[in-house]
C-alpha cells in the first residue's frame, strides 16, 4: 500500500513526540485536544468557470482548491446487458417503473489530484485520488445524480489541487475541500423532457444544486431527492490507546496505526426521516437528531513511523560520555552485552519504530469514535453546514 511521504526526524524528537502523545490525555505538539482539527478558512464559488468550486486553507498554510466541471456526454449503450428498452417491451407491467430507472456508472466521474512536487502517477497521488473517489462512488448513489435521461448523462470532472507544498498528509484537507465543492456544485436546469436531446435553462440562478439543500424550499419542491451529502474522509491515527484526529506531519510520524475513514450520510434513513422534515422545518430539531452516518470505506495508511531509524540507547552509544574513553577490553565486553539487551528491549526515552500489526480493538475504537452520535464526523458535518455556499 502506498505510504505517506517520508519525514526526516531525529530519534530524540520521535521519542519525545511518542511519549507526549501516549500520555492520558495526550499532549499534542500544537496543544490541540485529541479530536480537535486545525482551524481552517473555507470559501466556495471561487472559480467562476466551474460548476462548483471551493478553497480551504489551514492555519499552517496548506491550501487546496477543488473545481467541479460538468459536461453532457452521450451514454454508451451496453451490449452485455439487455437494454432497458427491450426489457420494457418484455413486460408491460414494469414499463412505468423502468422508464424512470436512474442508473449511474463510475466512469461518469473523473477525479484528478495534483500535489506540487509529485508526479501525477506517483503512488501517493494515485492512492489519494483512489481513496477520494472510492468514498464518493462507494454507495452508487452519487452517479445516479448525473443521470439526465437514457441517452445522456453528465460527465463530472473533479480537479483537486493542493496549492501549497504538502506540509502534512493532505487527505483530510482534500476531502473537506471536495466535499464543499460538491455541495456548491450546480447543474443547469433541464428543460427538455424524456429521452429528447437535452436542452437546458440559460438562467444560472435557476440551476439546481447537485446536492439539493434541505433548507431551500424551492429546490426541494422541484427535486424531491433526499438531503444526502457528499462523503467526508477523515484521517485518524492511534498512538498506544490514544486516538488522535487530523494528525500533523510530526504526529503521523510516530503513529502506530493510521486510518482513512470515509463517512457518508445514509440516504436510506434520511428518506425515512423526510416525512418528518416538512413538519419540523426549524434547524434545532434537526441538530438534535444528528446525522445518519454511514461508514463508506476504511483504508489503512502506512504511517511513516515504520521507516524511521531507531534511537541508540546511551548504553550502546560509542560516542556517549564514559564509553568514548573506554579502552580496556573488560569494559568493552560489558558494553557489548548491554547493547545486545538494549536492542531487544525498549529503553525509556529511546525511539523504536512500531513493529507488528495494529490491534483490532484499537482499530474498532477508531472507527467507532468517528461514527458515534455527536462524534467527530457529526460535528465536522455540522461545521461544514455553516459554510456559506454561493
Amino acid at each position, binding site marked *: 500500500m502506498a505510504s505517506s511521504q517520508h519525514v526526516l526526524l531525529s530519534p530524540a*524528537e520521535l521519542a519525545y513526540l511518542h511519549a*507526549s502523545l501516549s500520555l492520558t490525555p495526550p499532549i499534542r*505538539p500544537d496543544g490541540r485536544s485529541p479530536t*480537535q482539527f486545525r482551524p481552517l*478558512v473555507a470559501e466556495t464559488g471561487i472559480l467562476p468557470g466551474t460548476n462548483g468550486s471551493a478553497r480551504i486553507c489551514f492555519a499552517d498554510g496548506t491550501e487546496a482548491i477543488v473545481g467541479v466541471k460538468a459536461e453532457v456526454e452521450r451514454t454508451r449503450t451496453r451490449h452485455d446487458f439487455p437494454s432497458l428498452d427491450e426489457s420494457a417491451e418484455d413486460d408491460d407491467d414494469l414499463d412505468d417503473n423502468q422508464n424512470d430507472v436512474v442508473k449511474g456508472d463510475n466512469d461518469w466521474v473523473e477525479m484528478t489530484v495534483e500535489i506540487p512536487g509529485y508526479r501525477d502517477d506517483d503512488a501517493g497521488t494515485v492512492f489519494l485520488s483512489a481513496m477520494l473517489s472510492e468514498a464518493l462512488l462507494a454507495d452508487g448513489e452519487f452517479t445516479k445524480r448525473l443521470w439526465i435521461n437514457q441517452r445522456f448523462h453528465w460527465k463530472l470532472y473533479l480537479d483537486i489541487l493542493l496549492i501549497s507544498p504538502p506540509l502534512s498528509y493532505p487527505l483530510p484537507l482534500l476531502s473537506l475541500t471536495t466535499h464543499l465543492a460538491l455541495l456548491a456544485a450546480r447543474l443547469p436546469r433541464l428543460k427538455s423532457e424524456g429521452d429528447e436531446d437535452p436542452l437546458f435553462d440559460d438562467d444560472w440562478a435557476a440551476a439546481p444544486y447537485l446536492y439539493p439543500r434541505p433548507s431551500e424550499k424551492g429546490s426541494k419542491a422541484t427535486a424531491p431527492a433526499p438531503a444526502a451529502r457528499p462523503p467526508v474522509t477523515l484521517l485518524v491515527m492511534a498512538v498506544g490507546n490514544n486516538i488522535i484526529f487530523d494528525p500533523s506531519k510530526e504526529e503521523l510520524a510516530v503513529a502506530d496505526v493510521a486510518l482513512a475513514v470515509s463517512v457518508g450520510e445514509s440516504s436510506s434513513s434520511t428518506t425515512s426521516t423526510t416525512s418528518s422534515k416538512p413538519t419540523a422545518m426549524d434547524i434545532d430539531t434537526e441538530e438534535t437528531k444528528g446525522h445518519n452516518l454511514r461508514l463508506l470505506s476504511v483504508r489503512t495508511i502506512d504511517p511513516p513511523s515504520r521507516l524511521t531509524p531507531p534511537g*541508540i540507547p546511551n548504553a550502546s552509544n*560509542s*560516542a556517549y560520555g564514559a564509553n568514548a*574513553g573506554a579502552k580496556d577490553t573488560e569494559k568493552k565486553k560489558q558494553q557489548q552485552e548491554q547493547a545486545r539487551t538494549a536492542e531487544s528491549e525498549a529503553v525509556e526515552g529511546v525511539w523504536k519504530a512500531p513493529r507488528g500489526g495494529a490491534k483490532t480493538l484499537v482499530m474498532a475504537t477508531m472507527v467507532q469514535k468517528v461514527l458515534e452520535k455527536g462524534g467527530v464526523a457529526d460535528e465536522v458535518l455540522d461545521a461544514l453546514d455553516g459554510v456559506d455556499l454561493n
Partner: protein
Amino acid sequence: MPITILPPKAFRDQPPRHSLNHDSDDVMSDATSDSEDSDSQPGGVSLDGGATIHPRKRHRSGAGAAASSTFTKRPKTNAAINSIPRSAIVTPGERITTDPQWMRGHGTYLSSASLGEQAITSSLAGIVTRTNKLLSVRPLRARYTPEVGDLVVGRIVEVQAKRWRVDVGSTQLAALPLSAINLPGGILRKRTETDELQIRTFFAEGDLVVAEVQQLFQDGGAVLHTRSLKYGKLRNGVFMAVSGTGGGGGVVRSRRQVWTLESANNGGPIDVILGVNGYVWISKHVEPVVPEEAKGQTGITNLEEVVSATMYSSQNDRIEPETMREIARIRGVVTALVENGLRVDEDMVTKGYNEAVELALVSADGPEDVYLGGERGEQLAAALTAV
C-alpha cells in the same frame, strides 16, 4: 468543538492597498513627504517599515541617504510620484518607476524601457520600501542568508566522508566538517581515521544540531562548527520551523538566542533556542549530571568531559507531563507570534508565554489547556501588541 471553520478574510470588497498591508498607506504617504523633504533638506535618514525591517537590510541605508544628498534640486512634478505603482506589493518583473531620480536598491534591477530609458524593476515579490531616493523591495518571504557568527539550528540531511550536510533553511545546505566538532572523550584531540569511520555515531541523518556559522563560501554556503559546550545534538524537546525571514514575522537577530525560561504550573525550567535561520528548539532544561566517580575532582577539563558526555546521546531523559505541557504551550506561543506577523525573540516569547498562562486560567478547560491556535492566537497577539 473539534473543528472551527472561519470565513475568509474579506479583501475583495476593499481596494487592495488597504487590505494587503495596512502599512502601505503610510509607506506611500511617507514616501511622498520624504521625497519632498529630501529635496529641501538633503541627508535626512528615515526608514520606512520601522521595526519590522530586517537588520541586514539596513546596511545600505546610510549610503542611500548620502547619495541622495548629492542629487541636485530638480523641479518636482506629481507625475514622478504617480509613476510609482500604487499598490504596495510588487511582483518580479514589475516596473516600479522609470523616473531617473530614484536609485535602485536591494531586490530591484535596471531594465531598459523604451527609448533608452532605464526602468527600475522589481526582482522579488515584496513590498516597495524607500529610503530617501533609494528604492528597494523587501521580500514577503525569503530564505535565510547565513552570516558568520549566527547561531543556527539545523538538521543533518546527508553524511559524507569527512563532513555532514546540514539543512539550515538556506538556499544551500550548510557543511559541518568532522574537524569542526568536539570529539567525545573530553580532551581536545586530533581526529583520527576511526572517527571518520564512525562518523554516524556522532550525527546521523535526521539529527538536529545547534551550531554556529564559522565561515561563508563565495556562493553564500555556510560552514558550521559545534566547538563549544553550548552546541551539539538536540534532545528532550520539540522542533518547529518558523517560516523564513521577511514579512515582519519570524526570528530576528537579538542579544540572546538561547535562554532558559522558568515555566509555570510546575513545568520546571525550559530551554528555548531560537535559531537565526528560523528553526526553533524548545526542550526541557537538563543540568549536566556529574557521575559518582568524577565527583570531588573538579577542574575545567573535568567539567568539559562531564558536559560533553551527553553531547552525542539520542536518548531522552525522563520528562514530566507538566513539562511537556508547558513545552507545548511555548510552541503555541511561537506559532501564534508568527501567524500574527510579530517578531520572535526572547522578550516577545517570555511576554507571550506569561500572557498564555493567564489566558489558560480563564479558559473553560483550566490551566491545562495549552491550545493557542486560531482565535486564541489572535487574542494573544492582540494582548501583546496592546502593551
